């Protein structure tokens, strides 16, 4: 008998606090598998943010810091500048990264901090009960847009495209965790992003379109279809930035 699939050592034994069917769990696993496969678990420092993934420090089998809401890229900057030889990544949701932490992510990218950002975009504030996020889709119903999101509340903000305008950074890709091929593609993107950091190429970010079936009021399976058919209309997948193999630090 040979093992086809077993739980990675990149995750601790702590059960996830996520709702049934939430794709945070899949994305956690992909990140942890990459850390294990690249053999960097013992030199990685995880920066957890605020939101559903606030307990990420309990799940990744690494040293970790829990950052204030939106500040993960600033905390990561402090850690990485102290330990440039270590691998530092933030794991942030869309409320954390695109709203309250918009300044921190933009400036960490602009300084080309040699860190990796895993940006999980589910177009909603999950932890607090499903309020509108800056990424919420037009006409999407949330608990603070009960009639659907109108333009007066703003349009869905496209962080990957915005950050990719910075010429000097290493890597930005948007993926999704919605079906077999897209999950495998997401893992390749995460691996690529960490390789950029290992090779000292500078700032890398992988945005992953993710589900919030509870906040969206859908079944977990329907949520995957929603990511694939609806979210990607607003948030197209693709590599937005790839600076080829130049050491920046």
């Amino acid at each position: 008998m040979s093992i086809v699939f077993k739980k990675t050592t990149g995750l601790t034994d702590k059960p996830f606090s996520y709702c049934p069917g939430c794709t945070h769990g899949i994305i956690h696993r992909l990140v942890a598998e990459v850390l294990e496969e690249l053999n960097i678990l013992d030199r990685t420092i995880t920066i957890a943010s605020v939101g559903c993934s606030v307990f990420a420090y309990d799940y990744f089998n690494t040293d970790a810091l829990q950052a204030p809401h939106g500040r993960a890229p600033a905390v990561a900057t402090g850690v990485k500048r102290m330990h440039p030889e270590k691998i530092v990544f933030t794991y942030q949701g869309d409320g954390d990264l695109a709203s309250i932490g918009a300044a921190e992510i933009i400036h960490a990218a602009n300084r080309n901090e040699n860190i990796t950002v895993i940006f999980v975009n589910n177009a909603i504030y999950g932890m607090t009960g499903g309020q509108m996020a800056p990424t919420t889709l037009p006409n999407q119903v949330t608990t603070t847009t009960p009639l659907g999101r109108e333009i007066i509340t703003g349009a869905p903000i496209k962080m990957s495209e915005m950050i990719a305008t910075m010429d000097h950074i290493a890597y930005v890709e948007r993926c999704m965790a919605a079906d077999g091929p897209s999950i495998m593609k997401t893992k390749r993107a995460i691996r690529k992003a960490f390789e950029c950091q290992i090779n000292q190429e500078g700032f890398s970010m992988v945005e992953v379109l993710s589900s919030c079936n509870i906040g969206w009021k859908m079944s977990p399976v329907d949520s995957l279809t929603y990511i694939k058919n609806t979210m990607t209309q607003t948030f197209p997948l693709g590599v937005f930035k790839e600076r080829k193999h130049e050491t920046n630090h």
Partner: protein
Amino acid sequence: MSQVEFLKGNEAIAKAAMLYGIDAFFGYPITPQNELIETMSHVMPANHRVFVQAESEVAAINMIYGAAGAGGRVMTSSSSVGIALKQEGISYCAGAELPCVIVSVSRSGPGLGGILPAQSDYHQSVYGGGNGDYRVIVLAPASVQEAVNDVGKAIQLAEKYRNPAMVLLDGAIAQMMASVVLPTQPLPRVDTTSWAATGDFKTRGTRNVINSLYLDPAKLYAHNQHLQAKYREIARNEALLVDHHPDHHDGAIIAYGTSAKIAIGAAQRLKEEHGIKVKCIQLRTLWPFPKQALREAIKDMPFALVAEMSMGQLFQDVLAFTRSDTVIGYVGKAGGEIITSDDIVNGYLQQMGGEQIEHSV
């Protein structure tokens, strides 16, 4: 062999911090501490240390949280409105028990206020604006030399107790040029391997996690009790005042920072011009407040005057903490008006007979 230089307060603090062995400085420009971050921008990289000009005070304090959490000896500096923005991060640092030094060169307020010296950030420094039952060690220098010494002391206290420590001064000290003795060697290191998130968990055997989140109320209460026990220990060990006139017993002037410097001269004038032997008591730590020592120092006196460049913030604490039969008077200014020797002498003479004046509510 000591190193003496003629420096502006801000420059002296920056150079001293580097010489004491600060690993990383994260700051953001704000008057009147700009020369501090400017000096850091060249002395830190020149000595192979980290300097980052952050995008905001909020980012700077979170870089501090990250670098301190990763075991670094770290410092940031700012002023009034900037310190207000840092409060969230200071609370996080206190909650996660991270050693860090915050230099606060206060200006006048409220709001954008003005850039001239004031002590209206006493409450902001001592009581803080962050959430939760936390404490920040607050040292109050009255001269450039004291500021330099206090940076070293703040590093040591922060590391000894794993707690944020603040050096609170104002533009009068930060912008003043003086001959100062700078440190000649870095301060000894404390061992951080048991808690710092340095990314070596396999060699260490356990994961180090920097965190202030405890959703279980029993655990959070226990964490709070642990913090309070630490704060009581700091209060027992580190509260400090200086009695500038040990042989004067007629009364006292209680002050800190720039006001204390002026009060020393006022006490001298009260003796020479009016024959009253008044001692100047300079508070060197604002938290922990030197309650016991202050109570002792004024216990048989009919009158003591609080002199401050704020509207009764210190006065109220002196009233609350001394609880003696000594009548406590108040003289103060704010808004960038610097208290004068005349203000203090006249205030003392006016109130020593028991005349009440209006003070803050």
